[in-house]
């Protein structure tokens, strides 16, 4: 006998209300990628080590591979897809990553950009050390992090001159 434990949830994803039927143990990343087709969020390890799956839940950066999907009921979720401006324009953080050489293979980039947005939401003028502390959960194997840290400083400077992350 199979018992149906699934439940209906509704939550805000990138500004739109979404409904989905989820299992109690379902991971948020699977809901986002496999059910809702938002594949910008990446899975690099499935155990909360690499941060490629980072999304914002109520403005806080979380690993969507560890986050239970049912827990987003009634909450606001933002993924990399929700960060672009009008007409798919790059946000200041995305533009800074692109211009600053902070993306190489690109697989860590969505998570890295999302973590940066969370950081700048809390600390609009982070020092290099603040940035390194905030991004310690996002692994990048390509860059050595130098151009990432510089890009984030450049984005912060642009944002403090006016604009939204």
């Amino acid at each position, binding site marked *: 006998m199979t018992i149906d434990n699934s439940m209906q949830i509704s939550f805000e994803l990138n500004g739109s209300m979404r409904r989905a039927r989820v299992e109690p143990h379902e991971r948020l990343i699977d809901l986002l*990628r496999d059910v809702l087709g*938002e*594949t*910008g*969020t*990446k*899975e*690099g*390890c*499935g*155990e909360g*080590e*690499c941060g*490629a799956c980072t999304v914002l839940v109520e403005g806080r950066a979380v690993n969507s591979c560890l986050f239970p999907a049912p827990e987003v009921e009634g909450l606001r979720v933002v*993924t*990399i*897809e929700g*960060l*672009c401006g009008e007409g*798919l324009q*790059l946000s200041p953080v*995305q*533009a800074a*990553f*692109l*211009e600053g*050489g902070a*993306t*190489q*293979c*690109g*697989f*860590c*980039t*969505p998570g890295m*950009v999302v973590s940066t947005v969370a950081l700048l939401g809390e600390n609009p003028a982070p020092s*290099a050390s603040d*940035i*390194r*502390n905030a*991004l*310690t*959960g*996002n*692994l*990048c*194997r*390509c*860059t*050595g*992090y*130098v*151009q*990432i*840290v510089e890009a984030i400083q450049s984005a912060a400077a642009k944002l403090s001159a006016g604009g939204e992350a």
Partner: protein
Amino acid sequence: MTRVVGTRLRRPEGPDKVTGRAMYVADDVPVGCWWGKAIRSPVAHGELLGFELDPAFDFSQVVLVRAADIPGVNVVDLIVDDQPILASDAIEHWGQPLLLVAAADQATLDAAVRAIDVRVRESEPLLDMEAAEVVFKEIVIDKGDVDAALASAPHVLRRTYHTDSQEQMYIEPQGAIAWPEAADGTVLVRGSLQCPYYVQRALARALDIEPARARVVQAATGGGFGGKEEYPSVVACHAALLARAAGQPVAVIYDRHEDLAVTPKRHPARVRHATGYDDDGRLLAMDVDVLLDGGAFTTLSPVVLSRAAIHAAGAYRCDAVRIRGRVVKTNHVPYGAFRGFGAPQVCFAVERQMDAIARERDLHPATLRKRNALRLGDTTATSGRLEESVGSEEVLAKILERTGFEDHPWCQPRPAAGRKRRGAGFSFFFHGAGFTGAGEVHLKAKVDVRLAADGRCEVHSASTEFGQGTVTMFTAIAAEALETGPDDVLVVEPDTGAVPDSGPTVASRTCMVVGGCLARACRELRARIDAHGGQGAEGSFRERARAFLAAGGDGRVEVTYASPPGLVWDDERYEGDAYPAYGWAADYVEVEVDLDTFEVSMERFVSAVDVGKAIQPQLVEGQIEGGSLQALGFAHIEVVGTKDGRFLQDRMATCIIPTTLDAPPMEVLLVEEPFSHGPYGAKGVGELPMDGGAPAVASAIEDALGISIDRVPATPERLAAAWLAAHPEEAL
């Protein structure tokens, strides 16, 4: 004066990457796609007896592929035909694929995997490379009379060095999707890979089809570092065999655990040096013995050994050199390609040996390097003469000026300074660009450029983008040679159905070799357009290109690589010009070692690198910073151990790589000693930064603690043991 080369272009594929729109293999799974997986050996050595299928599971909902079901040859095509796609009887390593399973959904696949029991007869595995008897490849390099030079040298130092394995840790795990044979007889594979034509050849042999009927398309690829050089052929063959059985597309996408447990990593190495030198530390004789653990199958080991042997004497001048290299078979998971390709192991050994000589002679390590560095006109260990583009003196001068290392009292007694000790270290090294010896001559890399109807120039090559910046670098070279802007260039997606074989995207060859072909092709195309319309004719590049096409001009140019004239290589004697050109570099590191935890913290890193010409300086710096951090990880925190033939670090939680907090501030000093046969003077840069970090860190730890570091990674456990051996009074 160049107009595009040397500037900073935006990565053409960058907007897709920063917005999450780039399609990696797992992002683009077709409707109706099945999921596939390999059932693997639970033992490192033994015999496969069979499979027990649980009768409670309905196997009619899945497909199984056994070795006997392979229509073609049961080998993973590479250098030697010794690696089966699926074991049929003998099992040579833990995790060896034995049986393939696919199902319409993941849950059914997982249930099927649980319902299959593997029956094996286990035998004793051979896991100690020193005890190995099967030699995959042996290379001997001989220059001068080493025995006589060692016998007459005033001083001889003999030491042995070890480097452990290292995991590439591309952030996107391996994966491929295969489609069953289409109506036109073509099998399609889309995957995360570096070398589309390697995969094509592997598929053709496994499926027994013409290579042209195996179409391989590279998906956006989330890092490779060599890890996606040979292994994607295994993943692709598994997916294609399952797709053939299922009659459906099948995705084989590894999770991190499977990826870490079974994919090839850097070869563990043992390197023995006997070096003769005079009172001033001048090298008189170098006798080097290199041993690499190849694991269970040949894979790329012979070529890894080749690079290891050629680089084993370091970037130093010596008239008497003997290098004996061997790569042997064990029952470890096969080792394979990883950035540096044998050079990081031997560079560690020779640089530590140079530091040891410096200590013996009471010389500063920088002085010793300057005294012995290869210079223009010198001959390498393989007796090849360095005729041009030798930036050795300039990288040394630049880094020493920037860091003041020559004034640092390296390994001199200093007043003890509490429980945190600081040190500085240094390394000097080179790395050959392109395939070894006659490799490029045999490869005959091709590139073609074609004018599209809109007048844009399309670049067709099999060179892949996996972060290093191939697309941007090709765009810059093509725009420069066409004398137009980057917007008039379109680098097309590597698809064996549409691009020529430019050779694999490995060996620091993409810019120098393939980029060189591209520059030639674009110059020829520009000449044709100019000849049609008259040089400096009116209108934009695209207008002139369209007019040229409208007048019936041939807008397609294909170029095949030609080696620079005068290069001579004897593969039997391992003698001659091993590479057309070398990149030269020196690294400087400052560390702080905590005497209670033995953690090593990286405080500062500086690298001076001669790349010939930085086609895109931002990308080149990104390569050097990223490669150098991998080298620093190799030096002290990246641990890959084995037990009973199985990798102990098979999760990301245990197989650690540097985070933002482990990475020091880094400074890159670019040197440009142009190479006349490279595009705009460019040589290779991809692998070079992997070579020097580990010995520089070891040198800095030695400076901080006064104990010699002959093995990497220099983990806290190893440092604690070495420190306590030297300071027994501190033992608890």
